[in-house]
């Protein structure tokens, strides 16, 4: 039986839509995977020596101190990215299979997922280095088993948390609270957790505790599915209570308002789009890396503009790059209705502009880091509105990835969204403004740099109508291809 399951899995892997791309992309994907593996391997081998050199502290202690964040971060990443096994159970329900077999397989499948395996590429080499550096073999193995068990605990915890947004919200709040307490030196969590992690080394038999915990969580997950193994229970998709909102305040936008209302409902009522909004909020804080001098490589003045564009344009990039894919599930409807592409595009444009302005206002706290920081954000915003909003819509016309609004899968990038055309379009999006600023900066100073960016942004804004006509014609020529592509939902 298990053999059959494995065969099925193998087929679903080989025949997945993602694999049906061209050879060049496949090679690129393999290279990407190898790159990540190599990174983790290098980190695994290198971390010990890097910490020793750079921080001049006992590396093993440092690792034990930050391990708690590693584990928590892992859980957060899983929450957003790891897909849950239950989805594929449905076709097996009525077949003559023991429930236990199906559930065990479903859960076991998550155990060999990328999210677990990737950690081995870090911890195995790291453990080897520890042994080379004279740490006791048995103790290191105990520590290693303990950590890997915790990683697996995360895996099983995620199975529960995944279906409950509330649990996740609680976890996030606790983490933020602990982080804040640590930051203000009220309470240092790592002081306690590092002792625990060190204990796993000193007393290797303690590794049995996380191991048992992982097993217990597995049992829990198993029982959870077993009792909810019905179409109207655990396997049912949640039905939200619909709320109606006429949004009459949007009528002031005139004929665009029809689409604008729809777009706002789209964002409010779908999981995938909500994640996008969340991401764009995170982008507002991205500038901290640049303006606080936290990352040395970002200290050059030209990076300011780079940061400014991302801080104000988080939504513009994350939402805009998938226009018109947001409407992929009902694209044939739109194409057979009497709509004007221009209005449709303009509605998306308004959304991006509004979001950019809001982000810019929210980002006013960057004034704290000097006027240059906020000037970069504002200049970036003007460039985003004038130039990038057009480019993003233009690029979107070539991206034909259907979006499943109700799931978060692929929310963080999609291989199909990555093609030569969109890659080329990043040049005017990011590199051009950096170059413009650099020119002004070197010629006369910061002020000229910022002014030039603003001038280019305003110029772009003046060409809005012409650009929209161009995009409209691209949308029309790509229409049949787009409809066909949206039909292939996996």
């Amino acid at each position, binding site marked *: 039986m298990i053999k059959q399951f494995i065969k099925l899995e193998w087929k679903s892997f080989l025949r997945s839509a993602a694999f049906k791309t061209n050879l060049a992309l496949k090679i690129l994907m393999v290279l990407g995977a190898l790159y990540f593996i190599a990174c983790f391997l290098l980190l695994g081998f290198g971390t010990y020596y890097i910490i020793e050199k750079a921080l001049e502290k006992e590396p093993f202690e440092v690792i034990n101190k930050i391990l708690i964040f590693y584990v928590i971060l892992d859980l957060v990443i899983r929450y957003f990215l790891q897909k849950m096994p239950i989805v594929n159970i449905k076709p097996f329900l009525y077949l003559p299979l023991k429930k236990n077999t199906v559930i065990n397989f479903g859960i076991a499948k998550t155990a060999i997922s990328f999210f677990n395996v990737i950690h081995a590429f870090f911890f195995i080499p790291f453990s080897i280095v520890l042994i080379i550096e004279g740490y006791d073999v048995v103790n290191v193995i105990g520590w290693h088993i303990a950590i890997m068990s915790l990683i697996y605990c995360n895996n099983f915890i995620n199975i529960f948390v995944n279906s409950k947004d509330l649990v996740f919200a609680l976890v996030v709040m606790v983490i933020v609270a602990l982080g804040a307490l640590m930051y203000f030196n009220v309470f240092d969590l790592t002081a306690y957790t590092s002792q625990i992690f060190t204990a796993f080394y000193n007393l290797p038999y303690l590794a049995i505790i996380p191991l048992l915990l992982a097993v217990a969580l597995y049992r829990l997950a198993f029982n959870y599915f077993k009792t909810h193994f019905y179409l109207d229970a655990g396997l049912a998709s949640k039905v939200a209570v619909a709320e109606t909102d006429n949004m009459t305040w949007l009528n002031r936008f005139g004929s665009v308002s029809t689409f604008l209302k729809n777009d706002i*409902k789209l964002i409010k*009522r779908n999981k995938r789009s909500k994640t996008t909004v969340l991401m764009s909020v995170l982008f507002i804080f991205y500038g901290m890396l640049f303006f606080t001098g936290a990352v040395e490589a970002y200290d050059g003045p030209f990076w300011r503009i780079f940061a400014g564009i991302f801080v104000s344009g988080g939504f513009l990039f994350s939402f805009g790059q998938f226009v018109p894919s947001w409407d992929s*599930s009902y*694209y*044939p409807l739109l194409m057979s*209705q*009497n709509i004007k592409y221009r209005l449709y595009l303009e509605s998306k444009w308004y959304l991006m502009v509004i979001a950019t302005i809001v982000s810019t206002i929210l980002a006013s706290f960057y004034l704290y880091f000097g006027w240059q920081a906020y000037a970069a954000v504002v200049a970036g915003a003007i460039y985003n509105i004038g130039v990038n909003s057009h480019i993003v819509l233009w690029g979107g016309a070539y991206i034909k990835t259907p979006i499943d609004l109700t799931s978060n899968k692929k929310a963080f990038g999609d291989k199909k969204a990555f093609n030569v055309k969109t890659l080329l379009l990043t040049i005017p999006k990011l590199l051009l403004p950096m170059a413009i600023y650099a020119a002004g900066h070197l010629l006369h100073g910061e002020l000229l740099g910022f002014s030039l960016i603003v001038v280019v942004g305003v110029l772009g804004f003046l060409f809005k109508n012409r650009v929209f006509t161009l995009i409209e014609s691209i949308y029309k020529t790509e229409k*049949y291809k787009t*409809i066909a592509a949206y039909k292939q939902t996996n």
Partner: protein
Amino acid sequence: MITTTNLSKKYNDALVLHIESLSIPKGQSFGLVGNNGAGKTTYFSLLLDLIQPTTGEISNNDVVVNKSEDWKPFTSAFIDETFLIGYLTPEEYFYFIGELRGQNKSDVDALLSQFEDFFHGEILNQKKYLRDLSKGNQKKAGIVAALIGHPEVIILDEPFANLDPTTQIRLKAIIKDLAQTKGVTVLVSSHDLLHVTDVCERIVVLEKGQIIKDLATNEATLKELEAHFSN
């Protein structure tokens, strides 16, 4: 109203549809029957300019559909769930379609009130999004949305599938009324021979993309169709 000339659609080398000529006059209720893969949905998709013909063209009220978009204001359709916007409530969806077709809220409300028995209390005011409705109820919403804005041509792909018997009977009455009293050209496809013969004045049988029968409906039609499909 709808004239098809020398239309064909090929995927790679497979010819999925080939219609030399077919014209559907205004106000006709037109039925398309055929087994799976006969080309029914392909024909409707071509008619809505959702796919490109390999050769030939369809003109809808003298508008060549893949050359101009002027057919859109007087044509409406419900093909499948890709014509529904899942995250809207049925009401919001009707109003949205209404706005696209130049109907205000009260126009739409007036139309919807005629379909209260068709909805059977399961569509309006349910506090549910379209994606959470059952397949049958989704279909009801989609069909009614296709009637918004006084279209002159209505295209319904398999409108009877997934509907309960009561609704099927009501839908038949609606379609008949549209063609006979309002002069609307209605195109339906179906696997249910009884329903098509009930509703349509004219029935065309497609097989492997070709028209092999073109019948004006009378008492003998159902028998003839049944005989045709049983061998």
